């Protein structure tokens, strides 16, 4: 990677955690020292071969990496593209990309001497992945989850409990992901001395967006090797964006490896919910304005007084009024295109992948799949697309059934 990196002018955050104007650490003073310690511990871990070896060994033997790159021919035919390569994060242990990050962060927690970890969760995937890593490393684990998400994702709630984690219901706001993040942060302020906060997406105060990206970039790093082995060069790369961790993990290595001219078209699918013309949406790039929430500056759905708005999406993992700061920057720089996808479009794509390939995707990932027909129209019938299937859909079958799909 390092020779190729020279051709790219892409830079991540500056030393204060700003991607252009976005990011930073807008947090109560109580946790500032903890963030500084985290930054130092992370930097040290990144130059320690022992850390890399333990992390990589666990990703290989425990998570099952590298995740396969699968050429989905029946899907490509159905959407009229030349080829669609699916990066199969759904085949990871625990069924989503989230585990790449939680193993990394829980290893960091152990290095920092913290025996207790907390996390927020929306879909429950990050909660399950944190509970899993904590069980693996013998750490105490508590997961904050909105009451509405507890209802939508009953299976994952049970899994977390099986894994020995305590699930703490959050009955504020809409009882969804943003409320869970707020509750987890409040709790962290209280227990900052003995508790490590395992943040689940590429957001939050610096250094989290960078840490999460570094633990998720394995997705893109592997894809580059796997595509090269087949002599394939994608015209476009697509991923869904909630906070943005699977998307930045997919895009970042390509941003580093390519100059602006030969960068494939990078496309992030954000949740439009019931539509951009409704108030039930999660499309923070399309409809948001820059602001501060949960400790960072980025695009944010907010009211005229600056209160964050409640987001909505059929997918609990995309149901968030903000977006990670690096994505806000990539949007402004024109390096990534962000496209809103409605619930209905995602449901159609969900069913299509089930029927054409025998793969039940996470409803989050289905938002990325929903963009394939548009890309075919734009790029033509020979175009090659790489798409990250961020997770599998077992957790979503109740919600999808309620929506009348497959019946």
């Amino acid at each position, binding site marked *: 990677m390092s020779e190729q990196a020279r051709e790219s002018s892409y830079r991540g955050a500056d030393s*204060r955690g700003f991607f252009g104007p976005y990011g*930073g*650490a*807008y*947090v*109560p*003073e*109580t*946790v*500032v*020292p*903890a963030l*500084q310690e985290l930054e130092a511990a992370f930097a040290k871990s990144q130059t320690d071969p022992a850390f890399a070896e333990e992390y990589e060994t666990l990703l290989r033997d425990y998570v099952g990496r590298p995740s396969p790159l699968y050429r989905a021919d029946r899907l490509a035919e159905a959407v009229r593209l030349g080829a669609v390569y699916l990066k199969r994060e759904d085949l990871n242990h625990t069924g989503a990309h989230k585990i790449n990050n939680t193993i990394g962060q829980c290893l960091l927690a152990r290095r920092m001497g913290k025996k207790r970890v907390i996390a927020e969760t929306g879909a429950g995937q990050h909660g399950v992945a944190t509970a899993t890593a904590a069980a693996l490393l013998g750490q105490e684990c508590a997961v904050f989850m909105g009451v509405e998400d507890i209802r939508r994702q009953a299976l994952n709630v049970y899994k977390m409990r099986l894994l020995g984690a305590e699930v703490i219901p959050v009955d*504020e*706001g809409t009882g969804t992901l*943003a409320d869970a993040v*707020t509750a987890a*942060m*409040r709790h962290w*302020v*209280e*227990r*900052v*001395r003995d508790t490590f906060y395992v943040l689940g997406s590429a957001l939050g105060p610096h250094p989290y967006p960078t840490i999460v990206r570094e633990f998720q970039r394995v997705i893109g790093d592997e894809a580059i090797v796997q595509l090269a082995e087949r002599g394939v060069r994608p015209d476009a790369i697509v991923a869904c964006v909630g906070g943005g961790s699977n998307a930045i993990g997919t895009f970042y290595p390509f941003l580093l490896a390519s100059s602006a001219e030969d960068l494939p078209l990078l496309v992030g699918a954000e949740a439009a919910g019931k539509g951009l013309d409704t108030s039930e949406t999660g499309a923070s790039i399309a409809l948001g*304005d*820059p*602001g*501060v*929430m*949960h*400790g960072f*500056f980025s695009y*944010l759905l*907010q*009211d*005229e*007084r*600056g*209160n*964050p708005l409640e987001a909505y999406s059929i997918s609990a993992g995309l149901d968030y009024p903000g977006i990670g700061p690096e994505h806000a920057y990539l949007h402004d720089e024109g390096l990534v295109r962000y496209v809103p996808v409605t619930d209905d479009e995602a449901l159609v794509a969900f069913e299509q992948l089930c029927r054409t390939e025998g793969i039940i995707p996470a409803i989050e990932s289905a938002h990325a799949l929903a963009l394939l027909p548009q890309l075919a129209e734009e790029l033509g019938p020979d175009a090659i697309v790489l798409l990250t299937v961020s997770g599998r859909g077992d957790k979503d079958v109740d919600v999808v059934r309620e929506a009348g799909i497959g019946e």
Partner: protein
Amino acid sequence: MSSADDDRSAARRGPSRSDTPGLSRAFAHGHPALVVYLMAGYPDRGRSLEALREVAAAGADLIEVGVPYSDALADGPVIVRAANESMRANDGFGLTEAIELAAQFVADPGLDEPPPVALMTYLNPILRLGPEVIAERMRAGGVGGVIIPDMPPDVAEEWLCVARPRHLDTVFLVAPTSTPERLSKAGEMSSGFVYAVSTTGVTGERSELSDEIEALVGRVRAFTTLPVAVGFGVSTPKQAEAIAGIADGVIVGSAIVKRQHDLEEMAIFVRALADAVHSTG
């Protein structure tokens, strides 16, 4: 430009005390200061204005006007509930409304030597409406300063650039976890006073106060000559008295907001706090 000039001459015409609205005079009475936090617009706008006058009359040396916000990261259940109730009861209540409320109190405080007023707001409402616009409205309204719990000194430059020329004090917080480097930064960049958070955690009453407070106040004093006020968790006159023995000011929030719906009960409580704090030191 011209509207700012108008505002400035309006301020000159106003009561003389609003020409020097800084927060530090709260600490110049020869006894420790009682700092009272109230939630703006709670239980409704009219009664929160009454509450400001009541606590001023009951002996508050400085009033923090809390701005209702839907994602109050540093606040516990009492303040969160009051904020939600304020937004609901007034069909929306935020920074603009809170500045107007504070300005109305400053213009007609109901007593001769009213305490200075600080706003306690999260950062995003300021960013949403524009730091310069907000700073100007605060100045024109006679607000003495701000406390912004999610704006540590590291990211305060934009705000300080508009606040300093208007002589608005900006109070930074220090916590038991603060390192010497952090204490020095907060001490250097604060104006008015330094806010020492008594314990790790969010706002809310505590039955026992942490034994770290005295050490923290001592550590802060090594880095600043500003008054140091202690807040978070102070719930009773007895606790307030203990804090008054070690700090220049005692900040009481949740325990007062809890009583804010009943002005009479609240005033009795604030008077008891004032007696306890003022008799110390």
